[in-house]
């Protein structure tokens, strides 16, 4: 299905097209990775609504990104329950191993690091959301393992051991 078809299907759930802006932005962000101006305007055109209505939602709600984010968006919860269970140390660790500060994206565009408000999974604090998935009961070693698996998933294993291995035929 094209983006237009997906948006039109989502809009059928509402008696008013304006209600479909949020679901349309979710669809558009999945399609484009983030929501630059031309995408917002396309959404407005598909739904036949005012562009300003689309802009105001894209900038009000924190899950919408008007700027690009990395392949993996690391969203570490640092609200009270996670803070009490050590999220501060996890943030420091992530900043150290990724070489970036929270809010930034790594130079290879693989990781964007953010802190977020409560993810609603405090029974497994500290928690981090990456893409659609929650990762709970985190500590430094689990965090390292998670980063490794994400790098592997991206097909860009950057560990020293791997880099030192001879290429086939060498």
């Amino acid at each position, binding site marked *: 299905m094209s983006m237009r078809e997906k948006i039109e299907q989502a809009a059928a*759930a*509402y*008696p*008013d*097209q*304006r*209600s*479909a*802006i*949020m*679901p349309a*932005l*979710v669809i558009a962000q999945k399609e484009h990775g983030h929501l630059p101006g031309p995408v917002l305007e396309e959404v407005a055109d598909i739904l036949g*609504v005012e562009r300003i*209505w689309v802009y*105001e*939602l894209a900038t*009000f*709600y*924190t*899950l*919408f990104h008007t700027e690009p984010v990395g392949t993996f968006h690391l969203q570490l919860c*640092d*609200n*009270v*329950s996670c*803070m*009490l*269970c050590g999220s501060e140390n996890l943030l420091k660790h992530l900043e150290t191993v990724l070489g970036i500060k929270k809010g930034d994206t790594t130079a290879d565009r693989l990781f964007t690091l953010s802190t*977020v*408000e*409560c*993810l*609603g*999974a*405090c*029974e*497994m*604090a500290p928690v981090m*959301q990456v893409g*659609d*998935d*929650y990762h709970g009961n985190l500590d430094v070693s689990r965090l390292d393992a998670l980063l490794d698996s994400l790098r592997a998933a991206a097909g860009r294993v950057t560990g020293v051991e791997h880099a030192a291995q001879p290429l086939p035929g060498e």
Partner: protein
Amino acid sequence: MYEPVLLKNVEVTNGHLLSSYEAGGGYQALRKVLSEYTPDEVVELVKQSNLRGRGGAGFPTGMKWSFVPKGGDKPKYLCCNADEGEPGTFKDRIIMERDPHQLIEALAVSGYAIGAETAYVYIRGEYVAAIRRLEQAIAEAHERGYLGKGILGSDFNFTVHIHCGAGAYICGEETAMLESLEGKRAQPRLKPPFPAVAGLYASPTVINNVETLACVPHIVTRGAAWFRGIGPDKSPGPKLYCVSGQVKKPGLYELPMGIPLKELVEEHAGGPLPGRKIKAVIPGGVSAPVIPEHGLEVGMDFDSLSAAGSMLGSAGVIVVDDSTCMVKVATRIIEFFHHESCGKCTPCREGLNWAVKVLRRIEAGEGAPGDLEQLDMLCKGIFGNTFCALGDGAAMGLRAALKHFREEFVAHIEEGRCPFH
């Protein structure tokens, strides 16, 4: 030994599938109301049960339903508040992920009662797994005739749509949620009119929390007297408690309403971590004023906690032990409210910005004499003067920290450092 009702399917393998739900007696309540009850009789039954809203405010559910006008030209809407953003709360997520049909049956029964043919479930966008499970369950329920047209051979039509939030705590406030559903920025509306009269698209609308709705089918099958027989008379029923923080066994516990907070934390949740002592507990999400250790005998119900100067809220129970700085906890809480303030009204938007600055400097050891009085003044300026309860929650939380742990704030200012670092 209390036998769980709301969570009975949660630990069942594949409990999220329709076949499992039916095997456990699922959809019998819907069958029963469609064949034996008029809508008004369902409203009356819920009134009789004394069910009170589990989202935080504790408003009597049956009474809320009875405010919906009879007849009229406009469609009626049922909205389910599954935005669950109150820090420390995760009960609705677990119901939706592990037992979504419980919510769907509850929506259908409640929709029948208020005369709605359409329900919107407003789920926070982070809950991807819950959204997928609920989508699958809605499709299954349609296939088996529990949703759709002429449900179970009756003349009742009912559809459930999911609306995903996109990261705004304020959407838990019911009128802000309606604004968001209408495709606007989530800012609360002035009341009246109340949603029951003019809510979604200016039509009569009922907004209930996931756990509140989940109680309804059980009230239908087991009776109002059964429900009233659990916990205190004025706020009865089974209750989900979310326990997190510095405690041995964090998790979701279903127990009677009104059990002592101390029993919940020390017996069910295993008590403090080895070598630590409990210093304080936040009983109902971060909007609920903190209770110091000596107050933990309080019962976990709306009235007992209110009498103790706190509130049941969302029953997000956050345990804080003696290794933790309360100034830091209070600062983090006010940072949260400041971040989530929708910006509509001045006391909340500006007052919280100011409070965060003062709290951060105290925690950093740069507090000045007069800072605590300034925080007291800010709480006074915010509380009762805002559009919605977000500002009140922030002010109540900060006031309680200043009242019960004032000596920690004073020590920060006098010593010029955080004594816990």
